[in-house]
């Protein structure tokens, strides 16, 4: 069979089994959405955890002209406070490194152009855990704002610990949902493909009698299901590209946290791996779904 014939067979098989092919493409779309959302969700929660996990309750940003001795004195005074657990000075270079670590690869090259000079020096204060953490952090912020050399204070008081716990819980729940949705979509996909197996077995039997090779008999189904896989995965990419930023903003608003500086979409290689996986999975399903007998018991 020439390539023209194989394409014709693929087209005709797709037309006669339209519902099965649409079901396969829809399954690939769901799998793509689940997989892509898992990668993007993991990246977002990592960004949130990066902020939350530091256990920082108050950040004081310092003026540029504050010298090292003044910083040291300020740290000393803070460490003498009974409710303060830890004080850490964040130099501009460290702030830049943290931003780059949190951003992940897909953010683009603009981070590479940043210099440490863009960032102010800051002091991060972690308070000892207690029931009155929020009012103590608010009081410390008020006092820090009155100090000479402090340009601004960020009191990260509202439910920081609670948020961290929720983010961890959300991660676990998210993985469970991803796993369940993935298994469901995969089962639907395999089921919809295997339902047409009997019809394809009969077609294969006819073609074997006519003298077609096993490879060419399977090729139309390979092509049809690989195309369905590619179409479903591409649709998933488009849907994620359009919907994910809005979903992320909604979640961040719901959780009451500032947007994390992470790449909000999949990178080139992540997309390429996803599309290739869908293509290969479709091809393999096409192969499995077409049983070809050697000798025929006609």
């Amino acid at each position, binding site marked *: *069979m020439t390539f023209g014939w194989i394409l014709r067979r693929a087209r005709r098989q797709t037309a006669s089994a339209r519902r099965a092919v649409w079901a396969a493409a829809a399954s690939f779309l769901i799998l793509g959405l689940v997989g892509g959302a898992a990668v993007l969700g993991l990246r977002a929660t990592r960004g949130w955890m990066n902020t939350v996990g530091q256990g920082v309750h108050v950040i004081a940003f310092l003026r540029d002209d504050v010298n090292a001795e003044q910083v040291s004195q300020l740290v000393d005074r803070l460490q003498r406070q009974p409710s303060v657990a830890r004080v850490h000075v964040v130099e501009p270079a460290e702030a830049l490194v943290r931003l780059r670590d949190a951003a992940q690869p897909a953010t683009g090259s603009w981070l590479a152009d940043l210099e440490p000079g863009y960032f102010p020096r800051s002091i991060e204060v972690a308070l000892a855990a207690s029931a009155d953490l929020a009012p103590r952090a608010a009081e410390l912020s008020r006092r820090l704002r009155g100090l000479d050399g402090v340009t601004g204070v960020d009191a990260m008081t509202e439910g920081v610990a609670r948020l961290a716990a929720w983010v961890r819980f959300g991660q676990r729940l998210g993985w469970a949902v991803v796993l369940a949705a993935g298994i469901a979509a995969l089962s639907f996909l395999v089921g919809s493909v295997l339902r047409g197996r009997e019809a394809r077995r009969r077609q294969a039997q006819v*073609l074997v009698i006519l003298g077609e*090779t096993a490879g060419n008999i399977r090729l139309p189904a390979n092509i049809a299901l690989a195309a369905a896989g590619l179409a479903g995965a591409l649709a998933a990419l488009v849907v994620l590209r359009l919907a994910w930023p809005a979903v992320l903003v909604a979640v961040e608003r719901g959780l009451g946290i500032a947007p994390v500086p992470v790449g909000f979409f999949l990178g080139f290689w992540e997309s390429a791996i996803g599309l290739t996986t869908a293509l290969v999975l479709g091809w393999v399903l096409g192969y499995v779904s077409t049983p070809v007998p050697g000798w025929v018991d*006609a």
Partner: protein
Amino acid sequence: MIWLEGVSTLRAGRPALSDVMLGVSGGELVVVHGPTGSGKSSLLAVAAGIRAPDSGAVWIGNHNIVGLQASSLPYVRRNVGYLSPEPLLIPDETVLENIMLALAVRGQAIDSAEADARETLAMVGDSAWEGRLAKSLSTGQQRLVALARALVGPPPLVVVDEPASGMGAEEREGIARALIWARDRGCAVLCATSDPGFAEMLVDVGGRRVDVEAGRIAGAPAIGLVPNPVHLVEQGEAKSGDAAEVIRLSDRRSSGEESS
């Protein structure tokens, strides 16, 4: 062109064919006649390279297909137009597409395949069926479409099992004409029937009758002497020596049987 040598097969543990010797050459029509269950269908399936024999050799052209790897079988089968007892068609495809598939497998261009398929359908059945789905036809019509698929081309070998089963007189004459058409184009035609009237009809137009009983060829030696060995050479299927070898084997076997 088809040469079965000492072929035996089992069906559900019982012998379906026993030591069958049969040859059909290009331009020859052989009618295998016998009652239901005599082994005709097994004989034709083996001759078409569809079913493997349990012992013996099946020569199609100059290949013993019993010794071939499974991956090589398709290249032999595409030279055989085979009509199975149950007309195997793709039910969700049109009649024309079902017929065209035989030419698709042989790599013929789509346009000319379409023209050839139309021509063969008009000869064997009805042109009006071409756009209908195979599953919408009656069993008799499906049988005629499957016969058209076996004849389209035509291929060097045509092996048809009960082509006239359940057909009226007019259709039987049409089928007989179609088989003669294939024979006259140099095809080796092997046709099985349990209908003595249809067998006689084919014998009357020059067919050679072979009777099968309980898996054995009955009566006269069933080895076809090659009437036109040059035909094999022209088809590129065999050397002239092969035809001579068929004749020698035939002679040897006949003389052996006589002496015993």
